């Protein structure tokens, strides 16, 4: 095995990504292959898989067993939840949200995609783009995952034919682009044989692009923050009240987006009071500037009333507050959401009472058809909702800010997480289509 030194691992970045696909697509095999070939599977884990495979009469170790954790999943041979996997290369640390792909697990896919910077959509090269593929593309678009990888799997079963891959890549890219997905990278692979997963395959010499792992290692993990609205949800007020620090009041939170600077004029929402940033403490170190996703403590120049649930924003870039929220939601609970439902809405660090005023439509992800006024949303349904909140909220559009444009609805009776919401329009306007260059398959 390759030796990873302490120094090489000390300054890597973190990529959170998600996979969606069914057992039939070979998703678990792909994930098992990434873990195995990047040397992240350890001897005792591999031995356990070999023992389990042998006891079922399988000759080769079934890499899918590495990822199917719960007993029900092992017994039924399905993946029913979001499982998080961890692996590292000398270039990067990865957190993988591994989700099942069938329509009844849409909520799991949405959960996995909510924190992902990249999502891998798997298709079987023999079947091409099917209903499930379009649904996965729609989820990536809906959750505004910045990067999408189309892994065209089982290339070994279509003779590694370039035209099969090219047709699928073209169809998928056109569809995803229409939904506003900003970037699609298509890669021909065989998870079972290991082609183009970690190492470039000699059987696809017509393909000039990166392997799956190469792409994961090099895709940019953060965006141009200059264009992001600065937002700091206040989690907690730090007041030592000691003899040395009798008057210290620090507003602690994780910067949801953008950058903050000492000296900047800020507004506290929803109250609208204004002040100036007198200091920023980055976990014990005073700094002049801080940015997402750092956890900081902010000191203000004036003695204004700030408490948990407030949002600190630059005065020159403050969102409007509203009690009427329109959003696209994914219903994640088994009990349905209905018009008139009284709920709690958690946005940032603020939880307020709210009522579901209307459910104008339900959306079928596979063909993007709309069903007007369904009355209720059941588990895994995607729909549009109108919500009235008991207090004004400073919401952004989800397209502008994934953290301050999102919310969850909670059942006040039993605390169940009911619904995940994204403020504003469902899909981005498509980017102008650019011609693919001839060097590779980076559509």
């Amino acid at each position, binding site marked *: 095995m390759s030796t990873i030194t302490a120094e090489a691992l000390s300054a890597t970045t*973190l990529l959170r990504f998600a996979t969606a696909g069914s057992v039939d697509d070979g998703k678990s095999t792909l994930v098992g292959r990434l873990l195995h070939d990047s040397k992240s599977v350890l001897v005792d884990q591999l031995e356990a898989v070999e023992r389990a495979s042998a006891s079922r009469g399988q000759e080769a170790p079934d890499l899918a067993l590495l990822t199917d954790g719960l007993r029900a999943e092992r017994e039924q041979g399905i993946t029913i939840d979001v499982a998080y*996997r961890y692996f590292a290369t000398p270039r990067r640390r990865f957190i993988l949200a591994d989700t099942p792909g069938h329509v009844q697990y849409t909520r799991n896919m949405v959960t996995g995609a909510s924190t992902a910077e990249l999502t891998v959509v798997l298709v079987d090269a023999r079947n091409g783009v099917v209903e499930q593929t379009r649904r996965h593309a729609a989820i990536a678009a809906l959750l505004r995952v910045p990067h999408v990888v189309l892994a065209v799997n089982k290339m070994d079963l279509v003779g590694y034919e370039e035209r099969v891959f090219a047709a699928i890549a073209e169809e998928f890219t056109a569809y995803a682009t229409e939904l506003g997905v900003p970037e699609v990278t298509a890669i021909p692979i065989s998870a079972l044989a290991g082609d183009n997963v970690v190492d470039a395959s000699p059987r696809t010499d017509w393909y000039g692009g990166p392997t799956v792992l190469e792409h994961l290692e090099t895709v940019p993990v953060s*965006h141009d923050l200059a264009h992001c609205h600065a937002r700091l949800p206040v989690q907690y007020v730090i007041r030592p009240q000691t003899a040395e620090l009798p008057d210290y009041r620090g507003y602690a939170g994780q910067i949801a987006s953008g950058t903050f600077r000492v000296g900047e004029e800020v507004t506290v929402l929803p109250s609208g009071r204004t002040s100036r940033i007198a200091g920023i403490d980055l976990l014990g170190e005073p700094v002049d500037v801080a940015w997402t996703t750092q956890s900081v403590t902010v000191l203000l120049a004036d003695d204004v009333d700030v408490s948990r649930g407030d949002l600190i924003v630059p005065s020159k870039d403050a969102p409007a507050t509203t009690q009427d929220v329109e959003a696209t939601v994914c219903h994640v609970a088994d009990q349905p959401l209905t018009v008139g439902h009284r709920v709690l809405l958690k946005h940032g660090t603020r939880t307020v009472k709210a009522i579901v005023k209307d459910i104008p439509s339900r959306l079928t992800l596979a063909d993007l058809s709309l069903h007007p006024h369904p009355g209720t949303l059941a588990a895994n349904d995607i729909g549009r909702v109108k919500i009235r909140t008991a207090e004004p909220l400073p919401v952004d559009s989800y397209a502008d800010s994934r953290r301050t444009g999102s919310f969850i609805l909670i059942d006040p009776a039993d605390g169940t997480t009911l619904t995940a919401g994204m403020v504003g329009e469902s899909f981005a306007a498509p980017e102008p289509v650019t011609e693919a260059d001839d060097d590779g398959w980076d559509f």
Partner: protein
Amino acid sequence: MTTVAEVTGGGEGTDSPYALSHLDALESEAVHIFREVAGEFENPVILFSGGKDSIVMLHLALKAFAPAAVPFALLHVDTGHNFPEVLEYRDRVVAAHGLRLHVASVQDYIDRGVLKERPDGTRNPLQTLPLTEKIQSERFDAVFGGGRRDEEKARAKERVFSLRDEFSQWDPRRQRPELWNLYNGRHAPGEHVRVFPLSNWTELDVWQYIAREKIELPEIYFAHEREVFSRSGMWLTAGEWGGPKETEPVQTRLVRYRTVGDMSCTGAVDSDATTLEAVITEIAASRLTERGATRADDKLSEAAMEDRKREGYF
């Protein structure tokens, strides 16, 4: 005033200067979790074993609320088979930071006849009842644990906020979806929430963070000479707790611990790593997970951890 161009986040290559290093990202996420709990719960407590994960948790909590004190107490589940070096460390840390310490004692339960010693002398499975009853009697509503999803397959699906009923039971089918960084801590009276701030950390991350932050650890994490004997392929410490049997010869070896638990089921590994850097290099090159190498209780069955988690184990 510092300009943005000078303040790089540790990224390289295609990453923007704003990209956080993986340790900064994990630290910020954990601090966010601690502060959410402080903001939403009445009476949280940190499970503190004196092991490296709980030591890192405490370090993060200290950073999250500085310059104020940590607004939580510590809870140690004392199996009665603790390494003396670890107890000494625990008491020193508690005194240094002016913390409150609760102890749930397995030995008390055995002495009162409520729990029975197992034939193999292993006390890890006996921790669940004292822990659960302490949570109930002290009315803790949030309990921080150092569990990491990379430790074991059943933990890979654990939530950051994990709801437990009044028997501390974990039902994998009742877990709430966690989207973005919006954690839902709602619970009924008598229920509590287990919170795992290190969910997304790996063993290597923990060690790298310890090295970066220069966090002091109990000495048993570093190579030292110890009288040990072999059982189930692990080096166990010879001592009063029940080992070795007559057929298990004792020898002195250079070893260190990768995890700290009950002496009866926590094994040492052969190692000459006496510094943090040497430990990190050793772990990066290791081909066994820390639980596979050193925890007898996880080898009991393929679903051993899942079963214990359902019953309220941490």
